[in-house]
């Protein structure tokens, strides 16, 4: 179907970019400022949702912003793959906005205006990544996302935040300029275009050596996906306020990295081209190592957020693993895991934040007995962790099942083992948290005063947990989009 030229994709991006202005201007009126945030989040979700029906029918929207380089305009294109990411991101941004209000006010954080304004720019860039029509446009929004999240990561403005901010920029900006930029230019000079095309743009044009080089440059260059050894920024970024960790470092930023890798594998390099150069195993091995090592490190972390961060690194590698299988079902699993993990992981982060707000506790070893004081939070945490482990009846099961099928179908015994072992490890680092919460009695009496976090925190985390559950029973829309994204 011919694409429809429409300004709505641009509107979806601009609404929060321009929305940063009224947020800054209502600096002195917190209630008004937060109303803007919620309003913008709602409008954005509505715009993205309004684009869904046509995309489900197999159509797409395009909009050219500017002609910059021959053959590569700054262009937006809404297709099925982008739609999945945009839907997940704009939906979860709404919940995060509500949660942010509860969290930031309960802790009486400073510089909240800067926080909400930067957040608005970041979500703009995220939607921009989802709707980018070619690699240059994606790169543009990818960089904007990196830079707009810097003030969020360093929000506390203390020495630790400064160190983490440095680490964050070094990894993220260093790889995008040092690896992705040359890879993109090499691709452009070979193909003469950077448009996302089903089947890729390099078929028959690049030698296997060049392809291997590009795979390595792109995989590690999009360091937001956290493939080892370029993962170190993610645990460091946990110094940010929890809503930032949950949304950006559980969903938007990290998935922007994975999404970019998807785009490159599906629409730039092309699965068949990679298959013929026998590069799928290169990708899956890099991902497998990350999955296992990250899960093992997660076991050793006592800080709740750091454990979640290492869990995220492992789960992101699952998605890359799926894409690297280069088979329809494996790639489907990868795409589905992007969505399923988002709802599961954000629930876990929301819970970690709620526990911190209620009890000021960051370490798992201090959280004995908290589950009885905060049953809803802990229940949500349990649901979220089950989803990420991949147990039915939760969304995560669907994606992991497809990944496993992909491994079986490809006769890749090593991958089957990796997936199974890793699931066990996931369980091993999540269940103790829940167990300690419910069954280990609190050691001293100070837990008496602790009760559930404010409703602004509690409602979003309950809803995202329920969505994880619902996605098991109603995954059809997502599955359909994912199948369309793979062109089948």
């Amino acid at each position, binding site marked *: 179907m011919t694409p429809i030229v429409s300004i709505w994709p641009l509107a979806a991006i601009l609404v929060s970019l321009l929305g940063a202005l009224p947020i800054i201007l209502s600096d002195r009126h917190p209630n008004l400022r937060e109303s803007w945030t919620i309003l913008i989040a709602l409008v954005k979700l509505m715009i993205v949702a309004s684009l869904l029906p046509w995309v489900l029918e197999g159509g797409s929207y395009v909009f050219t912003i500017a002609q910059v*380089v021959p053959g590569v305009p700054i262009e937006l294109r809404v297709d099925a793959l982008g739609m999945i990411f945009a839907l997940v991101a704009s939906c979860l941004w709404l919940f995060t906005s509500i949660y942010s209000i509860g969290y930031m006010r309960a802790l009486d954080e400073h510089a909240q205006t800067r926080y909400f304004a930067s957040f608005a720019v970041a979500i703009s860039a995220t939607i921009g990544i989802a709707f980018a029509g070619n690699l240059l446009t994606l790169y543009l929004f990818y960089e904007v996302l990196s*830079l707009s999240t810097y003030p969020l990561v360093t929000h506390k403005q203390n020495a630790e935040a*400064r160190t983490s901010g440095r680490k964050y920029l070094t990894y993220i900006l260093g790889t995008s300029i040092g690896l992705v930029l040359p890879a993109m230019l090499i691709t452009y000079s070979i193909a003469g275009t950077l448009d996302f095309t089903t089947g890729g743009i390099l078929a028959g044009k690049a030698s296997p050596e060049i392809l291997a080089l590009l795979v390595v440059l792109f995989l590690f260059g999009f360091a937001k996906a956290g493939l080892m050894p370029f993962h170190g920024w993610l645990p460091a970024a946990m110094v940010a306020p929890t809503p930032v960790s949950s949304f950006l470092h559980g969903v938007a930023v990290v998935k922007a990295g994975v999404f970019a890798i998807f785009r490159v594998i599906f629409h730039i390099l092309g699965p068949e081209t990679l298959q013929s150069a026998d590069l799928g195993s290169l990708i899956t091995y890099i991902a497998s190592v990350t999955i296992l090592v990250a899960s093992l490190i997660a076991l050793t972390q006592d800080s709740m957020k750091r454990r979640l961060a290492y869990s995220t690194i492992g789960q992101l590698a699952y998605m890359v693993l799926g894409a690297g299988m280069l088979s329809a079902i494996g790639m489907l699993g990868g795409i589905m895991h992007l969505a399923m993990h988002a709802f599961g992981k954000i629930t876990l982060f929301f819970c970690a934040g709620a526990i911190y707000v209620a009890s000021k506790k960051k370490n798992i070893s201090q959280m004995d007995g908290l589950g009885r004081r905060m049953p809803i939070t802990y229940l949500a945490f349990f649901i979220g962790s089950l989803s990420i482990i991949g147990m039915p009846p939760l969304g995560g099961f669907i994606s992991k099942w497809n990944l496993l099928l992909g491994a079986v179908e490809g006769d890749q015994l090593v991958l089957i083992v990796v997936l199974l072992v890793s699931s066990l490890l996931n369980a091993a680092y999540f269940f103790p948290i829940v167990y300690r919460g419910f069954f280990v009695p609190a050691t001293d009496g100070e837990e008496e005063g602790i009760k559930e976090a404010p409703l602004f925190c509690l409602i979003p985390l309950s809803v995202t947990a329920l969505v994880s559950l619902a996605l098991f029973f109603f995954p059809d829309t997502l599955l359909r989009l994912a199948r369309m994204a793979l062109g089948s």
Partner: protein
Amino acid sequence: MNATNLHLFVLVVPLLAALAINLLGRRSRQWIAPLVLGSLAFSVFGSVIIMARVVEYGTLRYTVGNWQPPYGIELVVDPLSALMMVLIAVVALLASFSSLKSVEQELPGREHFFFTLYMILIVGLFGLVLTGDAFNLYVLLEITSITTYGLIAMGKGRAALSSFNYIIMGSIAACFYLLGIGYIYILTGTLNMADIARILPTLNAPVATATAIAFVLVGLWIKMAFFPLHSWLPNAYSQAPTGAGTLIAPLMTKVTVYLMVRVIITMYTPALVFTHEWIARGVVWAASLAIICGSVLALGQKDLRRMLTYIIIAEVGYMVGGIFLANANGLTGSILHIVNDAFMTLCLFLVVAAIIYRQGSVSLVSLRGIFRRMPITMAAFTLGAFAMIGVPPTCGFFSKWYLILGGIDGGHWEFVVALIVSSLINAVLFFRIIELGYFGSLPDGDNQEHAIDERREAPWWMLSPLVLTAVILIVVGLSTGPLVNNVIRLMIPVGF
């Protein structure tokens, strides 16, 4: 004034203004601002009209006093000259707002001297991009250099010494250039560039031609501070009065790079310059070294303005390297970078001027917590920094794009690596400052108290051109396509 000589007026009006400033500004400083701004606004207006006309009708030629070339002086406005005219006019106008304010503070009572030189410098720059005559170009080059010496010498402290150092280097450069032109005149009997381009390839004098080319290029390289001929620049630019720096830093080196492009494309023809592949290869290597060394030297600086001067040296390497890649993408990237770098440098020097106006220093230590004191200035600085790093959609990204692409096309991987490494170093350089400004002086431990600095934003005279320049960085970036297709592509010689 009529359709054919409007470009002459773009040059004459600021010249008359320079004289008027000296006469009237002596009596009352009230005259200075209207004369400076009025004449430059006219130049902007005129140059934009000329640009539109050149894009529509093609190159304009005008013989001054109706003396026909090759004897008379010919003014030629082709798309590239027109682009440079607009660039010079816009940068000069934006810079002059800020200069008026900082000169008022730094050089009270000497404003009319300063702005007389300032305007003559701008006139000289206009002349340089208009002239079609190689000797006339020498004269104008000296006009701009001499006014620059004067402007720099008006600075405080060791400025006079730095200026003297610059005079020596500049004069050596002028000698080189003049010698080269002398050879050309002996060889061809003409000084008109178009004539030279016609006659030179027909002569069978490879050694003499090569010598002439080498002398002219070396002369220009000294003037543009091409590494390792750069030593005069950091002191001269960082000790000049702030108001002079905002004009000189964005324009002087860039116009000299333009002259090199002009000399190579229009006068010598690329075929002659790039005959020996190993020479072009050597220059690209030198440019790569310039980029790396400029960036690394910038890392060692403890003052924002000095740091920027070393970045200028690195950026000169970008542009020289791009030209000597001797392919279409490289040349496009270089010409685009002339425009982009002028605006980026302007943006950052306007920030420097604004901060110096408020707190007297831009040493890195004094920038602690500056975001709180001057949020709008620093927002513009951040944009300028992103452009220098090469973050899309700021303009710096797109010229780098073409330059890297040119490097890949030409197989010059050393140049590609140099560009990427320099982007990374720029990221370190600028984020170091952003970090200082953003975190301020950290209290010990996990203490969240922040010293509340009083907000003292720069005056509107300095802030508005700065904000406008920051916006221009994005606008130019997004207009890269039209700019390349309608203007720069027309300048790429056949066979590239």
